[in-house]
């Protein structure tokens, strides 16, 4: 049981003027990035890392939590106004929100975005706060076998939810794992794939890779975009909070379902806010009393999916803090930051630094409460935000990427890594190879390899001990099933296709 004392200390850590200022600045940054189409919540996080590098652990993580929560919400703004999702997490209901705007209900669509985001975010935070400590208790008993299976499960889920062709998802995954093997092998001290570069001995730095894949690739995509920018509707936005209580009450069950789905999908390693939103939008339609209204500007789906994508954010921190296994691409970055700050994720952090981890949890609540006034402001200012010229913004972001990558190790080599990863990310996206599995694999790679070798040494080369402990056995079976699912689905589709072709 958590002592009140710890929570109070944590609250004291969080409610410092410095931390609060940082959170406020991060909120503004997150709202801006989220509402710019093409700049995602993951990118906001990646760009923040070099800045948080110079902070104490609590403000650093609180900044990331705040920026990502704001960005996920702010993605709804251009979705409703321009029919362009600001972040992938809003893509599921962009058409619906835009249809509402065309019907003259932009206030309702945007208001639902704010209120359900806050509600979902608070639900996710509460779930994190209550689920993480008992899980950590359980995780204390885990050995290398359980960790091996958990990280394999993370990889499997990343592959299962990756959009498009599973083969291309697998290529991305393998590429990420391979990038993770660069540097000195911890078991033998042999340096792998360093090609004589001293800078690679310690492995690839996460930040240049992420900034390259998410930000530089996006700038390249912007430079090659032919389409003319969308124009804003001229109408002034009225009171977004009008009728929100009634809406939340009317759709209390769908929104609650969105909260729960979002948290669970967020907690699932590999799947994040965007997947949660798609699934919740689909369940909202499936279980709605008036499914025929979906797609014509109906708020029900927006409410459920809007709650889901923000609750997923909290959910994703459950495996990240308890096991050190990222729940989505944002927490993949957060885990890197936690290591940099000496707050190594894992069950022991709940024993060694409970006040730090609780301060992180509390920052979730604060960030989501801040969203109410700041979200309102962002919507009011949306016209100004969306008219910032991209031709000026994108080069400045590129310069931020450059300096940010440099700042992690203070070497120009990092800029080279960022450049290469930017080209790789651009080519991957262009060819339908998703980036998220690669990033998750990069974080999970060392965990998998080290736990596998450790387990193998303990088991003296036998495979059976991987299944002998009850939790390890169950996790192993689940992992293998999840790994086999895409294959089974593929075979099933193929046989149906054959049957259809034969008939």
């Amino acid at each position, binding site marked *: 049981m958590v002592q009140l004392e710890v929570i109070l200390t944590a609250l004291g850590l969080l409610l410092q003027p410095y931390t609060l200022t940082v959170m406020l600045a991060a909120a503004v940054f997150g709202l801006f990035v989220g509402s710019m189409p093409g700049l995602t919540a993951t990118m906001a996080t990646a760009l923040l890392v070099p800045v948080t590098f110079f902070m104490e652990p609590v403000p650093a993580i609180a900044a990331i939590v705040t920026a990502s929560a704001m960005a996920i919400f702010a993605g709804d703004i251009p979705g409703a106004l321009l029919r362009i999702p600001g972040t992938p997490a809003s893509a599921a209901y962009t058409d619906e929100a835009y249809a509402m705007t065309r019907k003259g209900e932009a206030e309702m669509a945007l208001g639902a975005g704010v209120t359900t985001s806050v509600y979902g975010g608070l639900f996710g935070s509460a779930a994190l706060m209550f689920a993480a400590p008992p899980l950590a208790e359980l995780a204390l008993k885990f050995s290398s076998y359980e960790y091996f299976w958990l990280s394999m499960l993370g990889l499997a889920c990343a592959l299962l939810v990756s959009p498009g062709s599973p083969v291309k998802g697998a*290529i991305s995954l393998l590429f990420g794992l391979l990038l993770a093997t660069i540097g000195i092998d911890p078991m033998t001290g042999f340096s*792998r794939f360093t090609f004589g570069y001293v800078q690679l001995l310690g492995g690839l730095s996460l930040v240049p890779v992420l900034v390259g894949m998410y930000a530089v690739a996006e700038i390249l995509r912007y430079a090659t975009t032919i389409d003319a920018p969308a124009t804003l509707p001229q109408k002034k936005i009225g009171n977004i909070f009008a009728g929100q209580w009634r809406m939340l009450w009317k759709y209390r069950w769908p929104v609650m379902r969105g909260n729960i789905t979002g948290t669970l999908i967020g907690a699932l390693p590999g799947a994040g806010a965007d997947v949660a939103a798609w699934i919740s939008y689909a369940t909202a339609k499936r279980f709605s009393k008036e499914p025929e209204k979906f797609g014509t500007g109906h708020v029900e789906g927006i409410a459920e999916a809007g709650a889901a994508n923000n609750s997923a954010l909290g959910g994703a921190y459950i495996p990240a803090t308890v096991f050190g296994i990222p729940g989505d691409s944002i927490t993949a970055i957060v885990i890197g930051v936690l290591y940099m700050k000496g707050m190594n994720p894992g069950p022991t952090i709940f024993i060694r630094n409970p006040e730090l981890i609780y301060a992180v949890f509390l920052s979730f609540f604060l960030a989501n409460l801040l969203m109410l006034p700041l979200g309102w402001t962002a919507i009011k200012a949306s016209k100004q935000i969306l008219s910032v010229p991209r031709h000026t913004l994108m080069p400045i972001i*590129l310069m931020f990427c450059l300096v940010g990558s440099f700042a992690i190790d203070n070497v120009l080599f990092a800029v080279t890594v960022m*450049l290469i990863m930017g080209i790789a990310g651009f080519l991957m996206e262009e060819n339908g190879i998703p980036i998220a599995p690669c990033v998750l694999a990069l974080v999970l790679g060392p965990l998998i390899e080290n736990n596998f070798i450790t387990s193998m040494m303990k088991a003296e080369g036998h495979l059976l001990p991987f299944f002998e402990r009850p939790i390890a056995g169950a996790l192993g079976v689940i992992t293998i099933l999840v790994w086999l699912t895409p294959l089974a689905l593929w075979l099933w589709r193929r046989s149906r296709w054959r049957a259809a072709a034969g008939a």
Partner: protein
Amino acid sequence: MKFNDAIIGIVVALFGAAVISQAWYFPKAQHIPYGPGFLPTLLGIGLVICGGLLVIGGLTHRREQPVLALGAWASSPRHAFGFLLVLAGLGFYVLFADDIGHFACSVIILFALIAHLSRRPLYALAIAIVASVAIQMFFVEILLVPLPWGVLEPYSGWFNWR
């Protein structure tokens, strides 16, 4: 820049094969058969298999999928140039930041990119200088990142307002 799946497959498979051939020479572990080369070899095999699957898929769909679909931007010189300019800017930084310093690089890269994208050179110059000073202030003075000064070292004091 969308390639036919068969082309990607071949590249991926060759990459996998190269990884395997490298990992082959990694030392073996003492007591267990899983040394530093074990995981890379496994990943290499995976890449070869996935590449092979893509080749098969790409060949069966080769009628619908061209060998290389460049995208509309490649035939628009403006956009193709923009693409190259981003890469050239980064390359320029890597090559020259140590010599001419971060600040000069920043002004040059920002000016080139904004001038190209906005087509307004004077505006671009003004933004490039203002943004470079702001970035310098934020990262060097507040966050204390030791960005290289290069030949501008004697003037570095201009920004030092402490």
